[in-house]
């Protein structure tokens, strides 16, 4: 325990988050004076990189922003380019995209649950320590994750940075026989996903809550993944093309990153907890039942419980993948033509970590003249900083080591995909 009123804690690396960045907490005279989550934004780099490229290229280029959620980038890019070109893909192609996206949700959520987040709740420093004691649990996680990998490979061509996605659809589509073995593996994965919900529901969750406005895509009749319009818990409803009217990004002095907020309203949160809170009525009966048994209720405002939401969404994604495979009819053509035109297009999909927005402007020759990408982690920065300020204020009696460790855990609640945005995450808690 420390009795200092001014403190500086400096941790050289925040482990078990996707990517790297920096975190600073300044405490002066016993009060939290400043909390800054710094991330440097490769999307800004990619936005510049995209200018002058053909309208067919953004799905492949933006997929390289992140190795964990490349499908999200591809799907948002396709949606925006097709919107600009006035093309709507047929339902068969849309269904195959949703199936691919399910693979990414499974892979990303299970990675976070088992290898990055669960060790926090179980008192382990890492998944390696967890594996030493409970090899069965880690094996279950890896097997479940592999079901997502297999989907990504079967439809996307490979598990990392899929190569089979193109504007208008795919380069090739699988035969039903290609998907049949996946269905069997997904049946097993569904049991593993349900076991995962029961497992994480038993964790102990600190009583910490937030009142952030939450934002997600919504689509009546089903849990929104690759399409929908935007809603918030504060009652906002708008089409994806109006995203920039409602979401304002601004430079903040302490970071090269842009902070997003809702115009005239303030910080907000996107991601699994927001999706669940806004869309849980559209979950499948089995996923709803699992959520109810896990004690989630109708909304999730405790960030620690986000691990339960991820597990429930994994159940949904596995079940949805099975449903899509059962209903699969190969499209008559792998892709539809997407002739370019001078126009702007807007696309948003639900990446595992939240709403991912893309906008492209094309000239008459089909070249990209401007691009805008707003990843979920950047949108969540202000809300995470707000959480951390309150979190630290309630724990100033902890010594620097323990406080820093708990801050790291609090950040991991949001599964920040800082690899979408930066290359190193240092944590500095400054008490001066």
């Amino acid at each position: 325990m420390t009795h200092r009123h001014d403190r500086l804690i400096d941790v050289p690396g925040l482990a078990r988050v996707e990517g790297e960045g920096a975190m600073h907490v300044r405490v002066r005279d016993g009060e939290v004076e400043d909390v800054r989550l710094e991330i440097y934004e490769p999307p800004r780099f990619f936005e510049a990189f995209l200018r002058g490229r053909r309208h067919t290229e953004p799905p492949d280029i933006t997929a390289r922003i992140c190795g964990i959620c490349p499908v999200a980038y591809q799907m948002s890019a396709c949606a925006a380019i097709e919107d600009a070109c006035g093309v709507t893909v047929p339902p068969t192609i849309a269904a195959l995209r949703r199936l691919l996206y399910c693979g990414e949700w499974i892979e990303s959520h299970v990675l976070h649950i088992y290898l990055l987040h669960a060790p926090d709740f179980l008192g382990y420093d890492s998944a390696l320590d967890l594996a030493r004691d409970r090899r069965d649990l880690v094996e279950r996680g890896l097997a479940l994750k592999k079901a997502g990998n297999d989907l990504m490979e079967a439809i996307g061509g490979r598990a990392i940075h899929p190569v089979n996605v193109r504007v208008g659809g795919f380069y090739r589509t699988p035969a039903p026989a290609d998907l049949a073995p996946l269905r069997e593996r997904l049946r097993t994965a569904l049991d593993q996903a349900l076991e995962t919900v029961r497992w994480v529901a038993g964790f102990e969750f600190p009583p910490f809550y937030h009142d952030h406005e939450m934002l997600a895509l919504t689509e009546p009749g089903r849990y929104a993944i690759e399409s929908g319009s935007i809603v918030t818990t504060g009652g906002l409803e708008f089409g994806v093309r109006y995203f920039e009217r409602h979401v304002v990004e601004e430079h903040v002095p302490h970071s090269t990153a842009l902070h997003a907020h809702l115009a005239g309203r303030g910080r907000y949160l996107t991601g699994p907890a927001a999706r669940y809170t806004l869309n849980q009525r559209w979950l499948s009966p089995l996923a709803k039942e699992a959520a109810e048994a896990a004690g989630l209720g109708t909304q999730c405002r405790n960030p620690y419980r986000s691990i339960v939401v991820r597990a429930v969404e994994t159940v949904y994604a596995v079940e949805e993948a099975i449903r899509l495979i059962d209903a699969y009819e190969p499209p008559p053509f792998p892709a539809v033509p997407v002739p370019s035109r001078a126009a702007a297009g807007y696309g948003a999909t639900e990446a595992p970590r939240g709403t991912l927005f893309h906008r492209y402007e094309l000239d008459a020759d089909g070249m990209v003249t401007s691009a805008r990408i707003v990843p979920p982690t950047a949108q969540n920065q202000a809300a995470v900083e707000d959480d951390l300020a309150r979190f630290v204020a309630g724990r100033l009696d902890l010594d620097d080591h323990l406080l820093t460790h708990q801050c790291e855990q609090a950040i991991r609640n949001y599964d920040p995909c800082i690899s979408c945005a930066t290359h190193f995450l240092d944590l500095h808690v400054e008490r001066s």
Partner: protein
Amino acid sequence: MERRVVIGVGNEYRRDDGFGPRVVAELAERRRHDPRLAGVDLRVSDGEPARMLEAWTGADVAVVVDVARGGPPGEWTELALPRTAEPATSGHGFGLGATVALAHELDRLPRRLVALVAYGVEFGFGTGLSDVVAAAVSPVAERVCELGAPS
């Protein structure tokens, strides 16, 4: 028949971090005329631990090609991978050493695991290797061919 896998780790949009994928691309080209690479599974990875485990599980020989900071730029070295965890500060919260240690705990290590690591100098945004690192592509690819040759 031996299962042999080569995993190029890195991000080609972060300059020298694209060394591993570049070596894999070179190997894919060489495979068309080099019998030592026949049947070798060539993969690119971002280093995410579960995917690394999946890539090398059951392999007789696994060669990981990666880039690192802290050495003479352009030079490269061959490492027998350690089985102990390292501070988990890499891109996905798991260093290669920790991934190897996890594989050890789960009995998922290949029979032989080798890392060929070049020292990079430029890790900013953008494509293309620095000249000194680009010069290491061919000798490292040749070493992979030697390691990948059926025993």
